[in-house]
């Protein structure tokens, strides 16, 4: 027990790396990340220099930053109360007592040490051997990472081919490949599952796109297997528990420097997984905003480097953590947990059921790459040139210039970041791929709402097994709603999953019912003769929420009232 905890602690503090005695020679066209390790120390040094420089200008300010860090860390660590934190806690307390007595130079040195420690903790690693290995064993990783103590053999062998076919990539991949050679890609996907980064990471490998660096929650790194792979594939660690200002600054600076140096990156602009199942309607961007600063800094330095944002939607027929997410959503925003550590992705039986279920499905996950844009929301042509209205190309550097001179300006970039956030939410809607489970769930839920008019959300959600929908009516609804969806798709307002397009309405219904049945721990819908009994309104709500923006357009005159209620429930369109 004791040894195990020591091992775990060492692994957490110092992720396992494999010594590289014969470093791979640099090849032309290699993604930058292949040679990250050679730059790692320099990146950390640059982060330290920039952060310290930003805060050390006056004694009062360094003192403030250190006090803030000491206070918030003391509070956090005191709450955590484990052996591991005792040492750290002691250090912060000591610092906190000394701060007032230190000179400006001494304070700056303290800050430098702290920033260096934080930056080293954040910085990732990249091992091309691990990268090549994952191309062959991702299926094992995908499942293994979730529970390293029990890696069943059948899981390791089988399911990759199967999953491979079920995982579809859409969009202009060739253009992305070209742009990856010209500039830096910043992938900004929707976020609904812990599988997102794995599914996306694998898709990049499979489609011949370069790997990306991304920040992963430190809680994921506590799993040694996952930690090993993530650490050796360029993921950097984000500890969302640390609230100190200086930590956020270090994180942003790290992200910015990596982008300045041309590392393709991945950010989830929504922040956390969508609890409700809805498409992100507001994005804060957070770290993704550093891409604009990185672009400006390269302009100022006179080494302009194109940067392309690529909105991505990740669309699942079944969401691994659906039950936990919707339960958390229904608890109300105030009580929702920001970091969920005990969801389905940490339970092996659920992972098994999930992968086993995928085998029978026509399409399980569609990853759609939307058209890339420059940092100022302009589309770009095949050569990465920014296109503006009228079809002209312009120099994107003009957006960070005044009087011909480029500058770094946080207030200006905050404006660009807001614009980008609005662009992304609109793009997510356009590029969302509606899956058949979502459509079936929506129509069942709409009926459920129609039959329970006047109830509030919570009393309605408690009605289990009390509403039955005639099967034939649902089939007719599916036929009608699918036509409406295809109409919307032809207007470029949404995308439709290929199997949703081709299958018969009755077939879609059966597939959806089967998919839920084998996977979710509760029964979603029970077949009762020629009727369907709604057993789990929560899961229906989760899956149908994806369709909220189009609810009224999918409705008929008879179902409009219920559709409006659904829209209102979700807080309007």
């Amino acid at each position, binding site marked *: 027990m004791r040894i195990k905890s020591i091992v775990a602690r060492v692994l957490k503090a110092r992720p396992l790396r494999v010594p590289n005695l014969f470093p791979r020679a640099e090849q032309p066209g290699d993604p930058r990340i292949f040679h990250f390790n050679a730059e790692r120390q320099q990146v950390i040094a640059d982060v330290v220099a920039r952060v310290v420089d930003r805060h050390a200008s006056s004694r009062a300010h360094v003192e403030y930053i250190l006090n803030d860090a000491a206070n918030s860390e003391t509070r956090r660590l005191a709450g955590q109360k484990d052996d591991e934190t005792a040492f750290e806690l002691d250090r912060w307390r000591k610092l906190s007592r000394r701060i007032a007595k230190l000179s400006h130079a001494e304070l700056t040195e303290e800050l430098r040490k702290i920033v260096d420690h934080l930056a080293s903790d954040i910085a990732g690693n990249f091992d091309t051997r691990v990268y090549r290995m994952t191309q062959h064993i991702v299926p094992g990783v995908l499942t293994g990472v979730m529970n390293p103590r029990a890696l069943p053999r059948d899981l390791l062998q089988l399911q990759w081919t199967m999953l491979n076919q079920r995982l579809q990539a859409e969009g202009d991949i060739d253009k992305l490949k070209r742009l990856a050679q010209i500039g830096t890609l910043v992938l900004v996907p929707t976020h609904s599952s812990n599988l997102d980064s794995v599914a996306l990471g694998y898709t990049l490998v499979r489609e011949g796109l370069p790997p990306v660096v991304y920040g992963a929650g430190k809680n994921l790194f506590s799993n040694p297997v996952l930690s090993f792979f993530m650490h050796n594939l360029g993921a950097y660690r984000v500890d969302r528990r640390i609230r100190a200002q200086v930590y956020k600054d270090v994180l942003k600076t790290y992200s910015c420097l990596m982008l300045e140096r041309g590392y393709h990156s991945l950010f989830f602009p929504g922040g956390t997984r969508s609890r409700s199942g809805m498409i992100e309607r507001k994005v804060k961007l957070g770290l993704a905003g550093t891409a604009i600063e990185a672009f400006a800094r390269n302009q100022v330095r006179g080494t302009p480097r194109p940067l392309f944002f690529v909105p991505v939607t990740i669309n699942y027929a079944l969401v691994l953590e659906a039950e936990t997410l919707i339960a958390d959503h229904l608890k109300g925003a105030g009580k929702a947990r920001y970091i969920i550590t005990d969801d389905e992705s940490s339970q092996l039986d659920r992972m098994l059921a999930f992968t086993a279920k995928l085998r029978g499905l026509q399409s399980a996950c569609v990853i759609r790459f939307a058209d890339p844009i420059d940092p100022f929301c302009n589309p770009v042509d095949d050569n990465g040139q920014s296109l503006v209205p009228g079809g002209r190309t312009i120099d994107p550097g003009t*957006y960070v210039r005044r009087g011909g001179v480029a500058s770094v300006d946080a207030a200006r970039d905050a404006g660009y970041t807001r614009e980008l956030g609005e662009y992304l939410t609109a793009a997510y809607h356009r590029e969302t791929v509606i899956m058949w489970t979502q459509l079936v769930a929506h129509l069942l839920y709409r009926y459920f709402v129609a039959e329970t008019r006047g109830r509030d959300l919570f009393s309605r959600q408690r009605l289990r097994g009390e509403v039955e929908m005639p099967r034939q009516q649902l089939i007719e609804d599916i036929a009608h709603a699918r036509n409406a969806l295809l109409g919307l798709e032809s207007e470029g307002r949404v995308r439709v999953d290929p199997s949703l397009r081709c299958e018969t309405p009755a077939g879609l219904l059966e597939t959806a019912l089967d998919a839920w049945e084998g996977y979710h721990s509760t029964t979603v819908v029970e077949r009762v003769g020629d009727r369907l009994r709604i057993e789990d309104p929560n899961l229906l709500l989760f899956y149908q929420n994806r369709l909220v923006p189009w609810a009224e357009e999918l409705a008929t005159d008879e179902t409009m009232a219920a559709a409006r209620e659904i829209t209102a429930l979700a807080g309007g369109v």
Partner: protein
Amino acid sequence: MTTDIAILGGGDFGWGLAAAATRTGKQVLLWSRRPQREATDSITVTTELERAALAELIIFAIPSIYVTEVAQQLATHIDGSHLLVHISRGIVGENLLSLTQVLRQQTPCRRIGALAGPVVAHALQQGKPSAAIIGSRFPEVQAAVRDALSSENFQVYATDDVLGVELASTVVGLLSLAIGYARHNGLHPSTLAMLVTRGLREASQLGVRLGARAETFHGLAGTGDLFAALAGDDRPELTVGARLAAGAATADAGTEAGTYIEGILGARWIASYLDRINCEMPVLRLMNEVFEGRMGGTEFFTRLMTLDVDGE
């Protein structure tokens, strides 16, 4: 000679802004399709739109209905470094697109803003003390407008709620028409107060729905501008409103025609948007009925006084 600021539009507002800019020592380029006034030492007049690109700050001072067209023409000459500002009331189309949104769609520019508030052309022209508000997400735009226009006789406040500024300004335009209309009908001040207060209240609710902030409607772009209209400044909306009430044909050209069309279209688009989102807002709807000619003064005021009212 350098060009510090370009102003598009040779109407009263264009010249008023040009005058304000010269008072801060700026060199102004004024573009007009058919210039009717002479250039001065610090105001160059041109009919070539591409010359506006020489200035970094470009202000649109033309009726909203022409903004799209001029923006399209200008778009081919400008890039991301230009700052665009407009001073028109009005929204465009079914989705209530604001003019900054139009400028953003039609041009490469992103650093965009809207100038509004209780400011009228001749006060600007003559340098009478007045104030305005610049709405922009970009502090650079706010600073540039202040630098170009604000002097001891012209205060320029700023906000980042650009949509709020534009919607408030648009609805105050409609309310100004209604004020002109109501005054011509001899409406009692109390009724007038109710009309404009409720109208602005609905506007702020609509604004919040579209992503603006309610407090912007209580600032210079909303309440402030409305006070000036009630006090009877020389804005064209009041004249056009009165003419509407008299049943006279509206001017077929010039500023008043622009104001008229701007008002009619704005009210129409707001009403159809309210229909679509299934929303009441009776005062805004009634104004549309009047502007469309579907409702006369008597009915308008009767309906106004018989609204089903509840809490404020």
